[in-house]
């Protein structure tokens, strides 16, 4: 901006110079005016809510009557931490997250190594693997409920066809959480794979040429070049997959409602139930703050390690 003014001031006619100077003065406030609308929206629906949820978490309140709020201090947190159901919810969330992230990233890494080819057939396979990612979780959930139907579902029909006993899927406390993991992994693998492939393709070819000259084995090349060069991608996926696993809601709400016997109840669903169904706003807020803390920690960690890469390349 400034450069434009300076570069042309030497031989520009006087009138134009004046215009440029006036524009220059306006320039001081102009960028703030341009950022303002977005900033207002972010404030109203992002920054203020973040502060507000912390505030709400030290009151006893309910959505039924927002006028009556009673200060209770740490009580909501104490209640949460001594509540066996909430322990179960935390445990479920952790198990679900670890399983989904490990399986989702592991499988997609292998798929990416395999599907990183420029062939017509492979392009079709890439698109197929990716397709669940853009489909609504509502459809995905209802579809998998039908596939996992214990009596008439396709999955049990296939199991029977290859001579295995029928599985209980969503109907049993031992298998329900794993079934939800399966659905989430199925949905996310395609996205991860495509991100990995993009990462693989950005590795400079001469590294591989050098490795080939050194007669490095495939395994050595993978360990010494591919994996280190992919580590930013891997790290990005670890963080984003973990954050989105913490948020799991749609599949629970549609497929299990947290059951059977709380075995698939996880953080966001718990917050939703406490806040919207049981009208226990305080407890729901405290649980939200805990979730916010977890996500915030991951975000800070993410920015801290990515700082050099993200800013103004």
């Amino acid at each position, binding site marked *: 901006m400034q450069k434009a003014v300076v570069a042309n001031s030497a031989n520009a006619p006087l009138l134009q110079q004046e215009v440029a100077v006036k524009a220059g003065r306006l320039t001081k406030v102009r960028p703030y005016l341009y950022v303002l609308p977005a900033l207002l*929206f972010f404030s109203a629906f992002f920054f203020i809510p973040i502060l507000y949820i912390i505030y*709400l978490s030290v009151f006893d309140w309910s959505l039924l009557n927002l006028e009556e709020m009673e200060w209770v201090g740490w009580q909501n947190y104490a209640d949460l931490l001594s509540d066996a159901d909430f322990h179960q919810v935390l445990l479920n969330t952790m198990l679900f997250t670890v399983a989904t992230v490990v399986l989702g990233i592991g499988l997609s890494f292998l798929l990416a190594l395999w599907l990183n080819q420029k062939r017509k057939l492979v392009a079709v396979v890439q698109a197929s693997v990716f397709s669940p990612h853009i489909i609504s979780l509502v459809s995905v959930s209802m579809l998998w409920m039908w596939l996992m139907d214990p009596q008439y579902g396709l999955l049990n029909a296939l199991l029977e066809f290859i001579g295995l006993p029928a599985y209980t899927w969503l109907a049993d406390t031992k298998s329900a959480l794993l079934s939800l993991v399966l659905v989430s992994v*199925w949905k996310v693998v395609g996205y991860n794979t495509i991100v990995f492939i993009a990462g693989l393709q950005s590795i400079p070819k001469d590294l591989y040429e050098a490795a080939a000259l050194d007669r490095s084995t495939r395994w050595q090349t993978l360990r010494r070049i591919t994996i280190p060069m992919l580590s930013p991608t891997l790290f990005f996926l670890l963080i984003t997959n973990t954050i989105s696993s913490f948020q799991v809601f749609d599949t629970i709400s549609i497929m299990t409602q947290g059951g059977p016997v709380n075995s698939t109840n996880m953080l966001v669903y718990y917050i939703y139930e406490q806040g919207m169904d049981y009208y226990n706003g305080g407890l729901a807020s405290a649980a939200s703050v805990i979730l916010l803390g977890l996500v915030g920690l991951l975000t800070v960690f993410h920015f801290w390690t990515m700082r050099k890469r993200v*800013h103004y390349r």
Partner: protein
Amino acid sequence: MHQSTRVAARWIEAVLLVAVALVFVFPFLWMFLTAFKTMPEVYQFPPTWLPETWQFANFETAWSSGPFLRYVINSVLVAIGVLIIQLLTAVPAAYAFARYRFRGRNFLFGLALIALMIPPQVIFLPIYVELSHMGLINTLWSLVLPYGASAFGIFLLRQAFMQVPDEVIEAARLDSASEWKIMWRVMVPMAKPVLVTFGLFSFIYHWNDYFWPLIMTNSDEVRTLPVGITMLKAAEGGKQWNVIMAGNMMLVLPILAIFFFAQRHIMKAFVYQSK
């Protein structure tokens, strides 16, 4: 001999590739096939592959079991409304971040990046309380306004605006075009591919979204399609999987159609966040 093992290996790989593709595509095919079966055929074990008689009536049953036209209109209004407001806020912000030096720029841009990381599920409660103070719960506004600013949109557009050559802007300034005009008439047209990318991303996200409309709405007039479709599941008298799958197709087909025609754009849009 060597030649033939290589050919064999290639064929085996092709078969495996198709098998992998089927793991991800076959469930959709099963949705499609189920949507055309009769109830007795749905509850038959082991299941049949193709429907014995193709039953188009399931779609009528699904469509007439609720105000689905209303749901579809709401879904489109929300997805388009969100996109319009997001562009109106993102274009000036991105232009400022890309083309101006000003105090606090890095700080403000950092704030936008944080917004990219924290999902709405974490803070839906306080937003609900805010919106209910404003009297906006159970209106389409409650579905549109909270998404009015998109950090991802700002991020993408900023990147695109930074790549516009200085000469183009200088030339426009010499024609004494206003900054506002340069932004919308010069920069935006040059960022067209990115706008398409972002538009697809935003539309798909909001068309598919279930969580937000579930929380913010409680009557049919303002419900969107994903919430409406889950109502099919609650219908009395056993799960009518054929009708449910027929309803599901309403939600899935538009997206699959868009994906079919703009596959590369869409994959790029979703992958872009990783960079």
